[in-house]
């Protein structure tokens, strides 16, 4: 039965398998949550009701403003992230790609370094 469903072009088109996968992905968490919801014993206490903060008691209000510094750091991290993403495939094929790819990578890393220089100079890396 399974074979027939998933074989291309018999019951469904190329993306039919993907559709079934998607349906299962939708149903699965629901199936897991509903029995738990029905079966669970309910004995709420104050301790259980407080927001979860890695097991530590919450201090003060839960809605606080985060420093913009966190987001700046995250953005600068993306610079290195992108660099790594492109450096890996380049490094794997480096031998075959030759001199041209080497220069190309220097240009790429140079532009990213420029961005880092900018962020550094403008004080995005100092924790004020």
């Amino acid at each position: 039965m399974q074979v027939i469903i998933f074989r291309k072009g018999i019951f469904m088109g190329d993306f039919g398998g993907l559709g079934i996968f998607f349906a299962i992905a939708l149903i699965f968490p629901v199936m897991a949550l509903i029995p738990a919801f029905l079966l669970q014993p309910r004995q709420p206490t104050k301790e259980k009701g407080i927001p979860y903060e890695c097991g530590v008691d919450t201090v003060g209000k839960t809605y606080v403003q985060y420093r913009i510094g966190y987001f700046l750091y995250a953005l600068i991290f993306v610079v290195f992230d992108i660099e790594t993403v492109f450096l890996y495939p380049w490094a794997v094929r480096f031998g075959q790609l030759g001199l041209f790819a080497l220069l190309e990578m220097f240009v790429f890393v140079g532009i990213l370094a420029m961005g880092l220089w900018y962020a550094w100079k403008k004080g995005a890396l100092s924790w004020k």
Partner: protein
Amino acid sequence: MNFLAIGTEIAIALLMLIVLAADLLLPKDVSHRRIGVISMVGLAVILVYTFGQYHIGASPTFFGGLFFVDNYALFFKQLFIIGMLFTILFSLEYTEKLLRYRGEFYVLLLSALLGMCVMASANDFITTFVGLELMTVSFYILVGARMTSEDSSEAAVKYLIVGAASTAVMLYGMSLVYGAAGSLVFSEVCRNIHLFYAAGLAGVIMVIIGFFFKLSVIPFHMWAPDVYQGAPTPVTALLAMGSKAAGIAVFMRILYTAFPILGNFWLPLLAGFAALCMIGGNIMAIRQTDIKRMLAYSSIAQAGYMMVGMAAADLAGMKAVLFYAMLYVFANLGAFAVLTVIDTERGGTSRRDITGLAQAAPLLAAVMTISLLSMAGIPPTAGFAGKLYLFTAVVERGYLWLAFVGFVMSMISVYYYLMVAKAMYRDLTPEEAEYAAPVYVPLTVRAAVLVSVFATLGLGICPEWLASLTNAAVQTFMR
């Protein structure tokens, strides 16, 4: 790979990095005017270089044909570079006085220019999208560049939200076109008959709607007036000429090279929306008292005129659109150079701020009037020649009613353009005369406005110069 083909883009990117480095190396409290000068010199060199790229015969390509440097793209690139060059020239003073992040301002202007140039050369949907996003994301930031102004921030957020929504629509449309045609390259899409199926048609419609958003075609124009009014004046100028021309450049290429077989479907659509734009834009402009907002509505109408040429869908129509786009740049340069000075000196661009400008700065008042008359299409300005080309082209294709709407609406537009002239030239009441402070006109602005006026009048008297260039530009489409 032929790197000379993307020489313009590489040069602009390089210039961008140089300007960024210059900004970092310059001490904080020093005038940033020299950074503007660096970018202008760089742009002038690039402009001269692009003249050398015009060619007869096969056009150079890059990335296996995804990036196409034909005369058509070159024409538009020159248009963007000219617009950017003179915008920087007349806004040196403004930038120095009103903006906090001055170095970044120039860098972002150049990155927007890079995006426009990529769009002009794009020969597939992904390249189009990358260029479009590079341009719009730069503009999101530029629109909000007046850090202390609430209007500016509001405009930026509005532009971001509407821009993101329209991008999503367009991108989804592109994915449907890919699903139907099996390719993203324009010529491949054109060859594929499956576009006639429902998904393909839906994709085509969504792509067209996406461009209508970007070109602020009525009824997708709601964002334009607020964004134009809130943005820093030089940025408004670039939105009106650069961003719009870039949208038209790539929209026209897509319609003629990717979807020509669907012509029967989009031609009436284009004609209808063009009429809607001309009528709505001109009528809503009448009631505006802020000049920037008025020019926003007027730019909606101008987009309508250019779409008239696109609806003609032949070489004459294309030439007319190119001609009109170029003269619109010069008219805009004049008008916005004046507005930028007014904004710097008097802190606003309402009709009250320009009252009595003829006495305070006669040159500026004259330039403003000539530029506005060119937009209205009064001879001997270039606007007349441009509209003549547009309407002749469309009448020859049988859309007599569309040309008629254009004529009537041009006449209506004269009214509100002349209202501005009247405010500048009329006699002042005593209390107004007290308010009307003298206006300092920097030398750079004088240079910029004189160039724009000479171009506007010169092209009005001898339109053949530009017409021969547009002839060369549309050669690509004569297959």
